[in-house]
């Protein structure tokens, strides 16, 4: 939806997922390099890395699809 061409809600969602995904991915990579003293259960699956990457990719797709340039075109 374009709110009277002010802001696309999907762009907001995409931006949020992208930023959160990058932060989570970064935290996961940091934990991979410097393993924490107290690990969460199933730490060996490194959920932060792949879940962060999935969120960042989905967010990036939304930003590209619903970004200002695309909407004008």
């Amino acid at each position: 939806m374009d709110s009277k061409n002010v802001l696309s809600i999907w762009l907001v969602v995409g931006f949020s997922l992208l930023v959160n995904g990058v932060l989570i991915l970064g935290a996961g990579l940091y934990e991979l390099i410097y393993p924490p003293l107290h690990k969460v259960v199933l730490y060996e699956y490194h959920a932060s890395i792949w879940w962060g990457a999935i969120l960042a990719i989905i967010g990036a797709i939304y930003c590209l699809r619903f970004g200002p340039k695309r909407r004008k075109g």
Partner: protein
Amino acid sequence: MRPATMSTSTLVHLSPVDLAIIIFYFALVLAIGFILKKSSGTSEDFFLAGREMTAWVAGLAFLSANLGSLELMGWAGNAYKYGILAAHWYWIGAIPAMLFLALVMMPFYYICKTHSVPGYLKLRFGAGAQTLSSISFAFMTVLMSGVNMYAMAVVMKVVLGWNMHTSIWVSSVTVLAYVALGGLRSAIFNEVLQFFLIWAGALLIPILGLIEAGGWDGMKARILANLTAQGNAQGGSFTHLWSTLGTFEANPMGINWVGIVFGLGAIISMGYWTTDFLVVQRVMTAKDLRSAKLAPIIGANFKMLVPFIVILPGLLGLALLRDGSGNVLKLVSNDLAWNSPQLGLHGYDEVLPLMLARYCGPGLLGLGITALIAGFMSGMAGNVSAFTTVWTYDIYGAMINKNATDEQKVKVGRWCTVWGVIISIVTAYMCKEASSIMDYVQALFSFFIAPLFGTVLLGMLWKRATKAGGFWGLLAGTAASIGMWAWVKLDPGAVRYIAMSTAAQDQAQNMFRALWSCLIGVVVLVVVSFVTEPKSAAELKGLVYGETVIPSEGKFAFYQRPLFWAGVTTLMFVIVNVCFW
């Protein structure tokens, strides 16, 4: 290896990256409010988001308005307490009602162009029914916002150790800023954002939980073993949806299929999803009739999936949670756990944060906590925006200033938002002083829903229903509901008359109270209607079946029509119920 939770006074500790994710969320919602202020100049913009939403946005907002954190944490806790029976509130307790709203009731709400459900009552039954409904709704809505605020403060204190005053004031100022600036549009934006955050933050729990438990069968075996070891003979019933509903005693909820099918499926859920203005308002923002009918159907499909991030974590908690010594962790009532922190116990409603802390390291934990905060704030914003609309149109516009200009309505709406938040804060502090107020407010809210459904439904489907019938039916149903609740409070033994069994737990009592109050309201409406003068056919145009021409949805292929997708949704609904029978 141990979960990073058990040895500390608070449930989890946030890292800098977790705090960055939370701060980013607050910055984003405030930015949305400021950007959308430009597009909320008229009353249609401020109160109904310009009626320009697509079916997807309206549908997700419709669902998210109900997907608050009280709901998420409460039902995960109920799944721990009652087992998979809690999923009924997401399936039979939601899907048929959402489809009914889409196909049967939405055309009337949409055609008569009302701004609210009390607004429809005024058109159909006159000012008396509107006044009764709008005052009770406005009052209860704003109290519910305060309950949400208090619940958030408690959860943040228990989970993170945050100061309750800080939680109350930060959340209320943020909600005030974005609703007062952008109106309903801003609230809807945040609801859709919250929907994605909740899935992003919670979906990992069932995935990792099922891996740890050894799949669905492994989880069932662990639940049975844990409950049997605790002396609970009903362990097997925790993972069956229907097969234990033959008698009240065969399941942990103390309910039978009559209560679930008729009390929950036919009355409570129908009342909530079709007449509670908080959720219906979201669908009213749709850009055309086809979108308005599709929106609840889209919402229904996602609603069907919510048990996988709410009910399943509750069941996984029952199967997997251990204390610091490796023994099964037994959760207790919230009151006991939260009022006696020195005992080191955890309440039922903590099962979702406990599971979050079990699997989520830095970053993921921040996202999960952000999703909970977003859910709480969305719950507050939804209640405040619905209160603002009903107050402005059905109380101020109908009783105080009947000739209010568009500009005056927007001004009143913004001030109402301020007052709504102030009353919410007062309610939150009242709950803080006496937490039982929270239970009373939630019980009070339920008094109005079931009788309202009977009144609106007969208003839409029965031409003979009269103005006096509508008013007295609504009043009698509400009074009956309050009366039954008070009766059980004063004499707990009365539950055997109202819920037909002394084994009936709180949820079962709610089901039967709703069923009786709706029936009493309908009987009074019918009897009074037969002895009073009906409206003429011309007056009923656009309000009742038989006197209304439903406009065409336009020329679309069969797979683009609401009826087709309602059929697909029904099929999915049957499949999930059979799968978990």
